[in-house]
């Protein structure tokens, strides 16, 4: 079964169901900003901003049936959209067929504004060779929340986390954590769990604990040893002789034994069986430091729905959704609903 390549398809407005009002997931308009379609929003041309933009780009806001095209006005309802663009499917990735909406946030999300931002990203662009992974994205993330980072494979989640963790350096744009550029200061306060096993081949659990104890001032050695015992790990067993699940437990205990201000967990439940998943999730939720921010990337939207305070959905290198979970629930929707609405049509097959 091969993925369907949608060639020669016009701007994919209809990939997103017309009854979805995605503007609710976008940051609220700054006070005083005119509502879309209101008289105040009409410019000198007599059209509102979206119409002006559509004219410039040659985008029709009304589809062939004479109905308003929802996806074409996505970014126009909410905060001031700086730029929005559409890309017709051009590569072999089927999910490129969904409407690509880029919204830059000149003002932080309401949640972020009220709680204070822990992360401020402006015009972040990252290429791997000629492959664009993050496309001029800007966003803020609220402090002291559990943030779910969602998106399909290859959308840039891991890249974004690696940039925040200080692993990737060659990017364009500005990235601040707690107002500081990525560097020693941010690394000292960021607990990063990689999707890979990053511990030494010849290390034992106790060696890994010693290593973290040496380099991270916020590391609680006693807590780590206690975790190791509770996990049933042999402190003297070499990590490379452990199963993948046990290795993940070792990494998790190291991270959760830190009293960091910012936790970055890249697919912590990736290779874990469903039974262990809830245990690991409990450990994460019960042990991250109070008032800290926890950002967690995952595909397991269902399992984590009730754990998130805030979700950010990346798609095709852009921020598609960045909002508080309460907003989503207020609309009578779940995170999965939102995810499917913005990403769900990505994997249409023949």
């Amino acid at each position, binding site marked *: 079964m091969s993925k369907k390549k949608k060639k020669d398809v016009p701007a994919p407005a209809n990939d997103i169901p017309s009854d979805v009002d995605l503007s609710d997931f976008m940051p609220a308009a700054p006070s005083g900003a005119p509502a879309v379609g209101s008289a105040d929003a009409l410019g000198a041309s007599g059209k509102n901003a979206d119409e002006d933009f559509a004219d410039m780009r040659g985008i029709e806001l009304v589809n062939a049936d004479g109905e308003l095209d929802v996806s074409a006005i996505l970014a126009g309802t909410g905060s001031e959209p700086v730029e929005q663009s559409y890309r017709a499917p051009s590569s072999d990735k089927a999910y490129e067929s969904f409407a690509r909406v880029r919204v830059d946030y000149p003002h932080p999300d309401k949640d972020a504004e009220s709680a204070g931002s822990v992360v401020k990203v402006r015009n972040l662009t990252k290429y791997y060779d000629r492959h664009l992974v993050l496309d001029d994205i800007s966003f803020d993330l609220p402090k002291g929340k559990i943030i779910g980072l969602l998106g399909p494979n290859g959308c840039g989640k891991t890249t974004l986390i690696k940039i925040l*963790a200080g*692993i*990737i350096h060659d990017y364009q744009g500005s990235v601040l954590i707690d107002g500081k550029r990525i560097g*020693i200061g941010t*690394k000292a306060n960021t607990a*990063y769990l*990689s999707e890979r096993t990053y511990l*030494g081949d010849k290390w034992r659990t106790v060696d890994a604990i010693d290593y973290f104890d*040496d*380099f991270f001032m916020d590391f609680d050695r006693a807590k780590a040893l206690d975790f190791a015992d509770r996990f049933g790990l042999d402190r003297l067993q070499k990590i490379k002789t452990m199963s993948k699940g046990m290795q993940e437990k070792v990494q998790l205990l190291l991270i959760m034994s830190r009293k960091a201000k910012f936790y970055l967990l890249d697919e912590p439940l990736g290779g874990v069986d469903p039974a262990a998943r809830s245990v690991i999730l409990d450990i994460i939720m019960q042990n991250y430091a109070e008032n800290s921010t926890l950002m967690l990337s995952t595909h397991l939207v269902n399992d984590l729905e009730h754990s998130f305070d805030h979700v950010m959905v990346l798609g095709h290198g852009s921020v598609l959704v960045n909002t508080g979970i309460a907003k989503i629930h207020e609309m009578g929707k779940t995170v999965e609903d939102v995810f499917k609405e913005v990403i769900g049509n990505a994997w249409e097959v023949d």
Partner: protein
Amino acid sequence: MLGKLIKHDFKSGASDVGIVYLIAGIVALTMVAFLVFDFGQGKIVSSVLLLIVCAVAVLVTFISVIRNFSKTMYGDRGYLTHALPVKSSSLIFSKWFVSTVWVLISYLMLYIAFFCVYNYLSDSSGSDMYDMIMMMLETMEFVPSQKILTGMIIAVGFKGLINMASLVIFIFFAITMGYVRPFHKLGGVGQVLYFFGTYYIVRIIGKGLSKLAELYFTIQDSGLGFTFSDAVAEIVKEYGGGAMRLTETYVQIIAAIVLFIITTDLVDRKVNIK
């Protein structure tokens, strides 16, 4: 933090090369045992074996230096290394320092093994060799004093150390270039090319400058000195002093410092971990 980095890098290196050094130690002890019990056949076998093991130790040490740097900086371990709250320059300095020490130990082992095996097989002692060197020197017009001889040995050793230390930086630079876009496209072959390319460019510059104006380090009974004059160096040698060419060495030092800075900068701004 630098001290902690060095501690952990030493531990990491020891786990890689430790086994070879252990084998070398066992072979050396076997050789001593055969000497004590005067076991003729075993003497030869263990001596040859010790030389082979020590030569292997040098090779293993270089492989370990390359492997450790690649793995801990740009492999899976790099995810942890780069998440540490330390400067890139500290990371690289620590790895450079530790690698240089391991390379130095491996070379020392090899030289000591040569010396021991020579004396062992020729049934001579260290003092015999010293007498032989002095006899050779006496055939020359001016015999260097023990002070000058000691000074020259120290100077040669120091020059060798600089060679090793700069070689390690050349290796680190070449490996790092292999992870910088677009140079990464050549992969491992590229890293070998970057190493030899850099190494020979520096050698050529050194030789060129050496022809233009050679800097000599001179040792005489009256003291130490530096001179750019070939004539002065010749006179010093004629009167039993020592004169050592230094131009290539200082070019190597400058190149190593520049490559260290470039490598740190690449790590800070350009490198992508796989």
